Protein backbone atom coordinates (compact mmCIF):
# COMPACT_ATOMS: atom_id res chain seq x y z
CA UNK A 1 0.00 0.00 0.00
CA UNK A 2 2.60 2.50 1.11
CA UNK A 3 4.83 1.42 -1.74
CA UNK A 4 2.09 1.98 -4.29
CA UNK A 5 1.38 5.47 -2.98
CA UNK A 6 5.03 6.41 -3.12
CA UNK A 7 5.26 5.13 -6.69
CA UNK A 8 2.26 7.23 -7.67
CA UNK A 9 3.82 10.34 -6.22
CA UNK A 10 7.00 9.89 -8.22
CA UNK A 11 4.99 9.23 -11.35
CA UNK A 12 2.95 12.38 -10.81
CA UNK A 13 6.11 14.42 -10.45
CA UNK A 14 6.94 13.21 -13.91
CA UNK A 15 9.48 15.19 -15.83
CA UNK A 16 9.98 17.87 -13.24
CA UNK A 17 13.47 17.81 -11.74
CA UNK A 18 13.58 15.56 -8.73
CA UNK A 19 13.34 17.80 -5.71
CA UNK A 20 12.81 14.92 -3.35
CA UNK A 21 15.13 14.10 -0.50
CA UNK A 22 18.44 12.69 -1.54
CA UNK A 23 19.68 9.71 0.34
CA UNK A 24 21.08 10.87 3.66
CA UNK A 25 19.79 14.42 3.17
CA UNK A 26 18.83 16.14 6.44
CA UNK A 27 15.25 16.30 7.70
CA UNK A 28 13.55 19.45 8.97
CA UNK A 29 14.96 19.25 12.48
CA UNK A 30 18.50 18.52 11.33
CA UNK A 31 18.20 21.31 8.79
CA UNK A 32 17.14 23.75 11.51
CA UNK A 33 20.05 22.69 13.70
CA UNK A 34 22.50 23.00 10.82
CA UNK A 35 21.27 26.51 9.96
CA UNK A 36 21.54 27.50 13.61
CA UNK A 37 25.06 26.08 13.63
CA UNK A 38 25.93 28.20 10.61
CA UNK A 39 24.65 31.35 12.27
CA UNK A 40 26.43 30.51 15.52
CA UNK A 41 29.73 29.99 13.70
CA UNK A 42 29.29 33.23 11.78
CA UNK A 43 28.49 35.37 14.82
CA UNK A 44 31.13 33.56 16.88
CA UNK A 45 33.83 34.36 14.34
CA UNK A 46 32.61 37.94 14.06
CA UNK A 47 32.61 38.27 17.85
CA UNK A 48 36.09 36.82 18.21
CA UNK A 49 37.59 38.98 15.46
CA UNK A 50 35.93 42.15 16.77
CA UNK A 51 36.86 41.38 20.36
CA UNK A 52 40.50 40.49 19.63
CA UNK A 53 41.22 44.03 18.52
CA UNK A 54 42.91 42.93 15.32
CA UNK A 55 40.43 45.17 13.50
CA UNK A 56 39.59 48.54 15.11
CA UNK A 57 36.00 48.80 16.41
CA UNK A 58 35.43 51.71 14.03
CA UNK A 59 35.89 49.32 11.09
CA UNK A 60 34.20 46.28 12.54
CA UNK A 61 31.80 46.85 15.44
CA UNK A 62 31.14 43.89 17.73
CA UNK A 63 27.87 41.95 17.33
CA UNK A 64 26.60 43.15 20.71
CA UNK A 65 27.08 46.78 19.78
CA UNK A 66 25.29 46.29 16.46
CA UNK A 67 22.40 44.51 18.17
CA UNK A 68 22.06 47.36 20.67
CA UNK A 69 22.15 49.93 17.88
CA UNK A 70 19.60 47.95 15.89
CA UNK A 71 17.27 47.91 18.87
CA UNK A 72 17.90 51.59 19.44
CA UNK A 73 17.06 52.49 15.87
CA UNK A 74 13.65 50.89 16.21
CA UNK A 75 12.48 53.61 18.58
CA UNK A 76 14.98 56.49 18.28
CA UNK A 77 14.70 58.23 14.91
CA UNK A 78 17.90 58.50 12.92
CA UNK A 79 18.15 60.53 9.71
CA UNK A 80 14.60 61.69 10.35
CA UNK A 81 12.88 58.37 10.94
CA UNK A 82 12.98 55.18 12.97
CA UNK A 83 14.27 52.01 11.34
CA UNK A 84 10.71 50.75 10.78
CA UNK A 85 9.73 53.97 9.04
CA UNK A 86 12.81 53.77 6.83
CA UNK A 87 11.94 50.19 6.03
CA UNK A 88 8.34 51.04 5.29
CA UNK A 89 9.37 53.72 2.86
CA UNK A 90 11.79 51.28 1.20
CA UNK A 91 9.16 48.58 0.96
CA UNK A 92 6.69 51.03 -0.58
CA UNK A 93 9.17 51.90 -3.31
CA UNK A 94 10.03 48.26 -3.77
CA UNK A 95 6.38 47.33 -4.23
CA UNK A 96 5.77 50.10 -6.75
CA UNK A 97 8.81 49.29 -8.86
CA UNK A 98 8.26 45.57 -8.66
CA UNK A 99 4.55 45.81 -9.49
CA UNK A 100 5.33 48.02 -12.46
CA UNK A 101 7.98 45.61 -13.73
CA UNK A 102 5.63 42.64 -13.33
CA UNK A 103 2.70 44.45 -14.92
CA UNK A 104 4.78 45.39 -17.96
CA UNK A 105 7.15 42.44 -18.13
CA UNK A 106 4.83 39.47 -17.79
CA UNK A 107 2.41 40.46 -20.58
CA UNK A 108 5.31 41.44 -22.82
CA UNK A 109 6.99 38.08 -22.19
CA UNK A 110 3.77 36.18 -22.87
CA UNK A 111 3.24 38.06 -26.10
CA UNK A 112 6.82 37.35 -27.11
CA UNK A 113 6.25 33.68 -26.37
CA UNK A 114 3.11 33.66 -28.48
CA UNK A 115 4.08 35.88 -31.42
CA UNK A 116 7.46 34.86 -32.71
CA UNK A 117 7.84 38.04 -34.75
CA UNK A 118 7.51 40.15 -31.60
CA UNK A 119 10.19 38.03 -30.01
CA UNK A 120 12.43 38.68 -33.01
CA UNK A 121 11.82 42.42 -32.74
CA UNK A 122 12.19 42.82 -28.99
CA UNK A 123 14.82 40.25 -28.08
CA UNK A 124 17.94 41.93 -29.52
CA UNK A 125 17.22 45.27 -27.81
CA UNK A 126 16.19 43.53 -24.65
CA UNK A 127 19.29 41.35 -24.55
CA UNK A 128 21.42 44.49 -24.75
CA UNK A 129 19.64 46.37 -21.99
CA UNK A 130 19.51 43.34 -19.75
CA UNK A 131 23.22 43.51 -18.97
CA UNK A 132 23.19 47.09 -17.79
CA UNK A 133 23.31 46.85 -14.00
CA UNK A 134 20.40 48.67 -12.30
CA UNK A 135 22.83 50.92 -10.48
CA UNK A 136 24.11 52.16 -13.83
CA UNK A 137 20.77 53.94 -14.26
CA UNK A 138 21.44 56.12 -11.21
CA UNK A 139 22.81 59.11 -13.12
CA UNK A 140 19.78 59.21 -15.41
CA UNK A 141 17.41 58.51 -12.56
CA UNK A 142 18.80 61.55 -10.75
CA UNK A 143 18.83 63.66 -13.89
CA UNK A 144 15.29 62.83 -14.98
CA UNK A 145 13.53 62.58 -11.65
CA UNK A 146 15.72 64.44 -9.12
CA UNK A 147 14.80 63.19 -5.67
CA UNK A 148 11.24 62.33 -6.76
CA UNK A 149 9.73 58.87 -6.50
CA UNK A 150 10.46 58.20 -10.21
CA UNK A 151 14.20 57.76 -9.75
CA UNK A 152 14.27 54.74 -7.47
CA UNK A 153 11.38 53.23 -9.34
CA UNK A 154 13.29 53.44 -12.60
CA UNK A 155 16.23 51.71 -10.98
CA UNK A 156 14.13 48.98 -9.39
CA UNK A 157 12.27 48.52 -12.63
CA UNK A 158 15.47 48.01 -14.57
CA UNK A 159 16.49 45.26 -12.15
CA UNK A 160 13.12 43.56 -11.85
CA UNK A 161 11.94 43.73 -15.46
CA UNK A 162 14.19 41.18 -17.24
CA UNK A 163 13.32 38.06 -15.21
CA UNK A 164 9.61 38.85 -15.60
CA UNK A 165 9.96 39.00 -19.38
CA UNK A 166 12.28 36.03 -19.76
CA UNK A 167 10.29 33.66 -17.59
CA UNK A 168 6.92 34.61 -19.04
CA UNK A 169 8.30 34.16 -22.54
CA UNK A 170 9.83 30.81 -21.72
CA UNK A 171 6.73 29.65 -19.89
CA UNK A 172 4.54 30.50 -22.86
CA UNK A 173 6.93 28.87 -25.28
CA UNK A 174 7.10 25.64 -23.31
CA UNK A 175 3.37 25.03 -23.04
CA UNK A 176 2.48 21.62 -24.39
CA UNK A 177 1.62 22.25 -28.09
CA UNK A 178 -1.26 19.79 -27.83
CA UNK A 179 -2.97 22.02 -25.32
CA UNK A 180 -2.81 24.99 -27.65
CA UNK A 181 -4.07 22.83 -30.52
CA UNK A 182 -6.88 21.50 -28.36
CA UNK A 183 -7.90 25.02 -27.37
CA UNK A 184 -7.90 26.14 -31.00
CA UNK A 185 -9.97 23.12 -32.02
CA UNK A 186 -12.44 23.90 -29.26
CA UNK A 187 -12.87 27.38 -30.71
CA UNK A 188 -10.81 29.51 -28.34
CA UNK A 189 -10.19 33.02 -29.68
CA UNK A 190 -7.09 35.04 -28.97
CA UNK A 191 -8.30 36.52 -25.67
CA UNK A 192 -9.46 33.22 -24.27
CA UNK A 193 -6.30 31.53 -25.44
CA UNK A 194 -4.34 34.08 -23.47
CA UNK A 195 -6.42 34.10 -20.34
CA UNK A 196 -7.22 30.42 -20.08
CA UNK A 197 -4.32 28.62 -21.72
CA UNK A 198 -1.25 30.81 -21.99
CA UNK A 199 -1.36 32.45 -18.57
CA UNK A 200 -2.20 29.35 -16.54
CA UNK A 201 0.15 27.22 -18.59
CA UNK A 202 3.02 29.62 -18.08
CA UNK A 203 2.14 30.44 -14.48
CA UNK A 204 4.68 28.21 -12.74
CA UNK A 205 7.43 29.76 -14.84
CA UNK A 206 6.02 33.26 -14.34
CA UNK A 207 5.95 32.88 -10.58
CA UNK A 208 9.51 31.57 -10.56
CA UNK A 209 10.44 34.66 -12.57
CA UNK A 210 8.63 36.94 -10.14
CA UNK A 211 10.60 35.46 -7.28
CA UNK A 212 13.92 36.16 -9.00
CA UNK A 213 12.60 39.56 -10.02
CA UNK A 214 11.61 40.48 -6.45
CA UNK A 215 15.07 39.58 -5.19
CA UNK A 216 16.73 41.73 -7.82
CA UNK A 217 14.25 44.56 -7.18
CA UNK A 218 15.06 44.58 -3.49
CA UNK A 219 18.79 44.58 -4.18
CA UNK A 220 18.51 47.35 -6.76
CA UNK A 221 16.34 49.42 -4.47
CA UNK A 222 18.91 49.66 -1.73
CA UNK A 223 21.47 50.66 -4.34
CA UNK A 224 19.09 53.34 -5.54
CA UNK A 225 18.47 54.65 -2.06
CA UNK A 226 22.14 55.11 -1.42
CA UNK A 227 22.00 57.91 -3.92
CA UNK A 228 18.72 59.45 -4.92
CA UNK A 229 16.36 59.63 -1.93
CA UNK A 230 15.98 61.09 1.55
CA UNK A 231 14.40 58.20 3.39
CA UNK A 232 14.67 54.42 3.33
CA UNK A 233 17.16 51.90 4.59
CA UNK A 234 19.73 52.78 1.97
CA UNK A 235 19.50 56.42 2.98
CA UNK A 236 19.85 55.46 6.64
CA UNK A 237 23.06 53.63 5.79
CA UNK A 238 24.50 56.56 3.84
CA UNK A 239 23.77 58.85 6.75
CA UNK A 240 25.33 56.34 9.13
CA UNK A 241 28.42 56.22 6.96
CA UNK A 242 28.83 59.98 6.87
CA UNK A 243 28.57 60.01 10.69
CA UNK A 244 31.17 57.24 10.82
CA UNK A 245 28.55 55.19 12.68
CA UNK A 246 29.40 51.71 11.45
CA UNK A 247 26.91 50.00 13.81
CA UNK A 248 24.13 51.95 12.08
CA UNK A 249 25.37 50.89 8.66
CA UNK A 250 25.42 47.29 9.80
CA UNK A 251 21.96 47.55 11.28
CA UNK A 252 20.76 48.71 7.88
CA UNK A 253 22.48 45.76 6.23
CA UNK A 254 20.86 43.35 8.63
CA UNK A 255 17.43 44.90 8.07
CA UNK A 256 17.91 44.56 4.31
CA UNK A 257 18.89 40.93 4.71
CA UNK A 258 15.91 40.13 6.89
CA UNK A 259 13.34 41.80 4.64
CA UNK A 260 14.88 40.29 1.51
CA UNK A 261 14.77 36.88 3.12
CA UNK A 262 11.12 37.35 4.08
CA UNK A 263 10.18 38.43 0.55
CA UNK A 264 11.87 35.34 -0.81
CA UNK A 265 10.19 33.03 1.67
CA UNK A 266 6.77 34.46 0.85
CA UNK A 267 7.27 34.08 -2.90
CA UNK A 268 8.79 30.63 -2.52
CA UNK A 269 5.66 29.57 -0.66
CA UNK A 270 3.48 31.04 -3.41
CA UNK A 271 5.55 29.24 -6.03
CA UNK A 272 5.36 25.89 -4.25
CA UNK A 273 1.64 26.30 -3.86
CA UNK A 274 1.10 26.96 -7.54
CA UNK A 275 3.28 24.07 -8.59
CA UNK A 276 1.35 21.81 -6.27
CA UNK A 277 -1.94 23.01 -7.68
CA UNK A 278 -0.79 22.42 -11.22
CA UNK A 279 0.80 19.04 -11.37
CA UNK A 280 -0.37 17.59 -8.10
CA UNK A 281 3.07 16.76 -6.72
Amino acid at each position, binding site marked *: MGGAVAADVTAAQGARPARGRRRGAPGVVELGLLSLGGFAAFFGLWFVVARSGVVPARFLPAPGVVAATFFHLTHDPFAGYTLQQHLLSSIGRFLMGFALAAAAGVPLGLLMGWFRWLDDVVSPVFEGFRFIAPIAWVPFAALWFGTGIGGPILIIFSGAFPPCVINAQRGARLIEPHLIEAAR*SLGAGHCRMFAEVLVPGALPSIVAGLRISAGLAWQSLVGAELIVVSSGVGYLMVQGQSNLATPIVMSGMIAIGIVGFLIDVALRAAEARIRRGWAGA
Partner: protein
Amino acid sequence: MGRSMSQISFQSVSRVFRRGSEEILAVADVSLEVADREFVAIVGPSGCGKTTLLRMAAGLDFPSSGSVLVGAREVAEPGPDRAVVFQQFALFPWKTVRENIGFGLKCRGVPAAQRNAAVDRYIEMMGLQGHENAYPHQLSGGMQQRVAIARSYALEPEVLLMDEPFGALDAQTRIEMQEELIRLARVNPRTVLFITHAVEEAVYLADRVAVMTRRPGRLAEIIDVAPVRRAEAWEERPIEEVMDLGSFTHLRTRIWKMLRDEREAKAEAPRVTPLQRRKAGP
Protein backbone atom coordinates in the same frame (compact mmCIF):
# COMPACT_ATOMS: atom_id res chain seq x y z
CA MET B 1 -26.67 21.20 -45.93
CA GLY B 2 -25.81 18.72 -48.63
CA ARG B 3 -26.53 15.39 -47.03
CA SER B 4 -25.38 13.33 -49.92
CA MET B 5 -22.15 15.27 -50.32
CA SER B 6 -19.03 13.94 -48.75
CA GLN B 7 -18.16 15.70 -45.53
CA ILE B 8 -14.47 14.93 -45.36
CA SER B 9 -12.52 14.52 -48.53
CA PHE B 10 -8.84 13.71 -48.86
CA GLN B 11 -7.77 14.29 -52.45
CA SER B 12 -4.41 12.80 -53.41
CA VAL B 13 -3.00 13.93 -50.09
CA SER B 14 0.71 13.56 -49.41
CA ARG B 15 2.58 14.85 -46.43
CA VAL B 16 6.36 15.15 -46.25
CA PHE B 17 8.06 15.94 -42.94
CA ARG B 18 11.52 17.37 -42.85
CA ARG B 19 13.80 16.22 -40.06
CA GLY B 20 17.14 17.92 -40.53
CA SER B 21 18.26 17.07 -44.03
CA GLU B 22 16.10 13.95 -44.07
CA GLU B 23 12.72 13.94 -45.77
CA ILE B 24 10.07 11.64 -44.38
CA LEU B 25 7.12 10.77 -46.55
CA ALA B 26 4.49 10.13 -43.90
CA VAL B 27 1.39 10.02 -46.07
CA ALA B 28 1.56 9.13 -49.74
CA ASP B 29 -1.19 9.98 -52.17
CA VAL B 30 -4.20 9.16 -50.03
CA SER B 31 -7.64 9.73 -51.47
CA LEU B 32 -10.53 9.04 -49.14
CA GLU B 33 -14.09 10.30 -49.01
CA VAL B 34 -16.12 10.22 -45.84
CA ALA B 35 -19.78 10.78 -46.57
CA ASP B 36 -22.02 12.95 -44.44
CA ARG B 37 -23.01 11.00 -41.27
CA GLU B 38 -20.67 8.22 -42.20
CA PHE B 39 -18.38 6.52 -39.69
CA VAL B 40 -15.01 5.66 -41.17
CA ALA B 41 -12.30 3.92 -39.18
CA ILE B 42 -8.65 3.93 -40.16
CA VAL B 43 -6.42 1.07 -39.09
CA GLY B 44 -2.78 0.58 -39.89
CA PRO B 45 0.62 -0.10 -38.39
CA SER B 46 2.13 2.36 -35.95
CA GLY B 47 3.75 5.32 -37.67
CA CYS B 48 1.87 4.88 -40.94
CA GLY B 49 0.43 8.38 -40.87
CA LYS B 50 -3.01 7.90 -39.30
CA THR B 51 -2.61 10.78 -36.86
CA THR B 52 -1.19 12.92 -39.65
CA LEU B 53 -4.31 12.35 -41.76
CA LEU B 54 -6.58 13.23 -38.87
CA ARG B 55 -4.61 16.35 -38.04
CA MET B 56 -4.99 17.53 -41.62
CA ALA B 57 -8.76 17.14 -41.37
CA ALA B 58 -8.62 19.04 -38.08
CA GLY B 59 -6.68 21.90 -39.64
CA LEU B 60 -3.71 21.35 -37.36
CA ASP B 61 -1.46 20.16 -40.16
CA PHE B 62 -1.50 20.69 -43.89
CA PRO B 63 -0.79 18.48 -46.88
CA SER B 64 2.43 18.92 -48.83
CA SER B 65 0.40 18.19 -51.94
CA GLY B 66 -3.22 17.41 -52.62
CA SER B 67 -6.05 18.91 -50.63
CA VAL B 68 -8.27 18.19 -47.66
CA LEU B 69 -11.86 19.39 -47.73
CA VAL B 70 -14.38 19.38 -44.93
CA GLY B 71 -17.93 20.25 -45.89
CA ALA B 72 -16.76 21.18 -49.41
CA ARG B 73 -14.36 23.82 -48.09
CA GLU B 74 -10.62 23.46 -48.04
CA VAL B 75 -9.45 23.12 -44.45
CA ALA B 76 -7.58 26.25 -43.42
CA GLU B 77 -7.66 26.25 -39.63
CA PRO B 78 -8.97 24.27 -36.69
CA GLY B 79 -12.48 24.94 -35.50
CA PRO B 80 -15.20 23.65 -33.19
CA ASP B 81 -17.16 22.25 -36.14
CA ARG B 82 -14.54 19.47 -36.13
CA ALA B 83 -14.02 18.28 -32.58
CA VAL B 84 -10.80 16.38 -32.00
CA VAL B 85 -10.16 13.69 -29.43
CA PHE B 86 -6.39 13.63 -29.20
CA GLN B 87 -4.33 10.50 -28.80
CA GLN B 88 -2.68 12.17 -25.78
CA PHE B 89 -5.98 13.51 -24.34
CA ALA B 90 -4.66 17.11 -24.24
CA LEU B 91 -6.70 18.01 -21.16
CA PHE B 92 -5.97 21.36 -19.55
CA PRO B 93 -4.13 20.44 -16.33
CA TRP B 94 -5.24 23.66 -14.62
CA LYS B 95 -8.92 23.08 -15.27
CA THR B 96 -11.24 20.74 -13.44
CA VAL B 97 -13.15 17.98 -15.19
CA ARG B 98 -16.18 20.25 -15.35
CA GLU B 99 -14.18 23.17 -16.74
CA ASN B 100 -12.43 20.98 -19.29
CA ILE B 101 -15.68 19.56 -20.61
CA GLY B 102 -17.36 22.96 -20.67
CA PHE B 103 -14.47 24.79 -22.34
CA GLY B 104 -15.70 24.43 -25.91
CA LEU B 105 -19.20 25.59 -24.98
CA LYS B 106 -17.74 28.53 -23.10
CA CYS B 107 -15.77 29.49 -26.21
CA ARG B 108 -18.99 29.33 -28.16
CA GLY B 109 -20.60 31.74 -25.68
CA VAL B 110 -23.15 29.32 -24.24
CA PRO B 111 -24.55 30.83 -21.01
CA ALA B 112 -23.37 29.24 -17.78
CA ALA B 113 -26.66 27.62 -16.78
CA GLN B 114 -27.14 25.95 -20.13
CA ARG B 115 -23.49 24.98 -20.23
CA ASN B 116 -23.65 23.36 -16.82
CA ALA B 117 -26.67 21.33 -17.83
CA ALA B 118 -24.86 20.05 -20.91
CA VAL B 119 -21.70 19.30 -18.95
CA ASP B 120 -23.72 17.38 -16.34
CA ARG B 121 -25.25 15.29 -19.09
CA TYR B 122 -21.87 14.30 -20.50
CA ILE B 123 -20.38 13.74 -17.07
CA GLU B 124 -23.13 11.25 -16.41
CA MET B 125 -22.84 9.65 -19.83
CA MET B 126 -19.12 9.11 -19.32
CA GLY B 127 -19.55 7.83 -15.79
CA LEU B 128 -17.54 10.67 -14.30
CA GLN B 129 -19.96 11.56 -11.52
CA GLY B 130 -18.17 12.41 -8.30
CA HIS B 131 -15.10 13.63 -10.18
CA GLU B 132 -16.54 16.88 -11.52
CA ASN B 133 -14.14 19.00 -9.54
CA ALA B 134 -11.06 16.82 -9.85
CA TYR B 135 -8.08 17.95 -11.87
CA PRO B 136 -6.86 15.70 -14.71
CA HIS B 137 -3.77 14.55 -12.81
CA GLN B 138 -6.03 13.21 -10.09
CA LEU B 139 -7.75 10.85 -12.54
CA SER B 140 -6.72 7.51 -13.98
CA GLY B 141 -5.70 7.34 -17.63
CA GLY B 142 -9.04 5.87 -18.60
CA MET B 143 -10.95 8.59 -16.79
CA GLN B 144 -8.83 11.27 -18.44
CA GLN B 145 -9.68 9.78 -21.77
CA ARG B 146 -13.37 9.87 -20.97
CA VAL B 147 -13.07 13.54 -20.05
CA ALA B 148 -11.38 14.18 -23.38
CA ILE B 149 -14.20 12.37 -25.19
CA ALA B 150 -16.86 14.24 -23.23
CA ARG B 151 -15.16 17.53 -24.07
CA SER B 152 -15.58 16.81 -27.79
CA TYR B 153 -19.07 15.36 -27.54
CA ALA B 154 -20.23 18.38 -25.59
CA LEU B 155 -19.67 20.54 -28.65
CA GLU B 156 -22.08 18.37 -30.65
CA PRO B 157 -19.92 18.94 -33.72
CA GLU B 158 -20.74 18.10 -37.31
CA VAL B 159 -17.55 16.13 -37.57
CA LEU B 160 -15.83 14.08 -34.90
CA LEU B 161 -12.15 13.31 -35.33
CA MET B 162 -11.06 10.65 -32.87
CA ASP B 163 -7.47 9.47 -32.56
CA GLU B 164 -7.42 6.16 -30.71
CA PRO B 165 -9.96 7.54 -28.25
CA PHE B 166 -10.40 4.27 -26.38
CA GLY B 167 -6.75 3.30 -26.30
CA ALA B 168 -6.23 3.92 -22.59
CA LEU B 169 -9.43 2.29 -21.39
CA ASP B 170 -9.72 -1.06 -19.67
CA ALA B 171 -11.53 -3.77 -21.64
CA GLN B 172 -14.81 -3.33 -19.78
CA THR B 173 -14.98 0.46 -20.09
CA ARG B 174 -13.84 0.20 -23.65
CA ILE B 175 -16.80 -1.98 -24.54
CA GLU B 176 -19.16 0.38 -22.74
CA MET B 177 -17.73 3.33 -24.65
CA GLN B 178 -18.04 1.49 -27.96
CA GLU B 179 -21.67 0.70 -27.28
CA GLU B 180 -22.24 4.27 -26.17
CA LEU B 181 -20.70 5.56 -29.38
CA ILE B 182 -22.94 3.28 -31.45
CA ARG B 183 -25.96 4.45 -29.49
CA LEU B 184 -24.99 8.10 -30.00
CA ALA B 185 -24.44 7.49 -33.66
CA ARG B 186 -27.96 6.13 -33.94
CA VAL B 187 -29.64 8.90 -31.96
CA ASN B 188 -27.63 11.66 -33.52
CA PRO B 189 -25.61 10.56 -36.51
CA ARG B 190 -22.40 12.42 -37.19
CA THR B 191 -19.53 12.22 -39.55
CA VAL B 192 -16.77 10.39 -37.72
CA LEU B 193 -13.18 9.73 -38.63
CA PHE B 194 -11.94 7.22 -36.12
CA ILE B 195 -8.40 5.94 -35.74
CA THR B 196 -7.69 2.75 -33.89
CA HIS B 197 -5.24 -0.10 -33.57
CA ALA B 198 -7.99 -2.47 -32.57
CA VAL B 199 -9.39 -4.18 -35.64
CA GLU B 200 -12.46 -5.53 -33.81
CA GLU B 201 -13.31 -2.05 -32.65
CA ALA B 202 -13.04 -0.72 -36.19
CA VAL B 203 -15.29 -3.43 -37.59
CA TYR B 204 -17.81 -3.05 -34.80
CA LEU B 205 -18.06 0.73 -35.06
CA ALA B 206 -17.40 1.76 -38.61
CA ASP B 207 -19.43 1.86 -41.79
CA ARG B 208 -16.17 1.47 -43.64
CA VAL B 209 -12.71 0.49 -42.51
CA ALA B 210 -9.73 1.97 -44.32
CA VAL B 211 -6.58 -0.11 -44.00
CA MET B 212 -3.29 1.69 -44.40
CA THR B 213 0.12 0.41 -45.37
CA ARG B 214 3.34 0.89 -43.48
CA ARG B 215 5.17 4.16 -43.96
CA PRO B 216 4.86 5.81 -46.39
CA GLY B 217 1.19 5.44 -45.54
CA ARG B 218 -1.05 4.64 -48.45
CA LEU B 219 -4.55 3.28 -48.49
CA ALA B 220 -4.28 -0.49 -48.97
CA GLU B 221 -7.98 -1.21 -49.06
CA ILE B 222 -11.34 0.04 -47.88
CA ILE B 223 -13.70 -2.54 -46.45
CA ASP B 224 -17.39 -1.85 -46.51
CA VAL B 225 -18.98 -3.01 -43.27
CA ALA B 226 -22.22 -1.05 -43.43
CA PRO B 227 -24.21 -3.46 -45.67
CA VAL B 228 -23.43 -6.41 -43.39
CA ARG B 229 -24.19 -4.38 -40.27
CA ARG B 230 -27.51 -3.23 -41.67
CA ALA B 231 -28.48 -6.70 -42.93
CA GLU B 232 -27.75 -8.31 -39.56
CA ALA B 233 -28.93 -5.37 -37.44
CA TRP B 234 -25.74 -5.19 -35.37
CA GLU B 235 -26.94 -2.04 -33.64
CA GLU B 236 -29.77 -3.96 -32.07
CA ARG B 237 -27.55 -6.60 -30.56
CA PRO B 238 -25.14 -6.61 -27.64
CA ILE B 239 -21.51 -6.23 -28.60
CA GLU B 240 -20.42 -9.71 -27.54
CA GLU B 241 -23.08 -11.27 -29.71
CA VAL B 242 -22.01 -9.20 -32.72
CA MET B 243 -18.41 -10.19 -32.20
CA ASP B 244 -19.42 -13.83 -32.36
CA LEU B 245 -21.22 -13.54 -35.68
CA GLY B 246 -19.65 -15.32 -38.62
CA SER B 247 -19.80 -12.19 -40.74
CA PHE B 248 -18.02 -10.17 -38.06
CA THR B 249 -15.19 -12.63 -37.54
CA HIS B 250 -14.83 -12.98 -41.27
CA LEU B 251 -14.31 -9.23 -41.75
CA ARG B 252 -12.05 -9.01 -38.73
CA THR B 253 -9.85 -11.86 -39.90
CA ARG B 254 -9.63 -10.38 -43.36
CA ILE B 255 -8.32 -7.08 -41.99
CA TRP B 256 -5.97 -8.82 -39.59
CA LYS B 257 -4.45 -10.76 -42.43
CA MET B 258 -4.07 -7.63 -44.50
CA LEU B 259 -2.24 -5.93 -41.66
CA ARG B 260 -0.04 -8.94 -41.06
CA ASP B 261 0.84 -9.29 -44.72
CA GLU B 262 1.64 -5.63 -44.70
CA ARG B 263 3.96 -6.04 -41.75
CA GLU B 264 5.69 -9.10 -43.14
CA ALA B 265 6.12 -7.69 -46.60
CA LYS B 266 8.27 -4.88 -45.32
CA ALA B 267 9.50 -6.25 -42.04
CA GLU B 268 12.70 -4.70 -40.81
CA ALA B 269 15.83 -6.66 -40.05
CA PRO B 270 15.10 -7.75 -36.47
CA ARG B 271 11.76 -9.26 -37.44
CA VAL B 272 12.97 -12.14 -39.55
CA THR B 273 10.19 -13.80 -41.50
CA PRO B 274 10.52 -17.37 -42.79
CA LEU B 275 10.95 -16.03 -46.29
CA GLN B 276 13.78 -13.73 -45.33
CA ARG B 277 15.43 -16.43 -43.30
CA ARG B 278 15.53 -18.61 -46.34
CA LYS B 279 16.98 -15.81 -48.40
CA ALA B 280 19.60 -15.00 -45.81
CA GLY B 281 20.77 -18.61 -45.68
CA PRO B 282 24.07 -19.63 -47.29
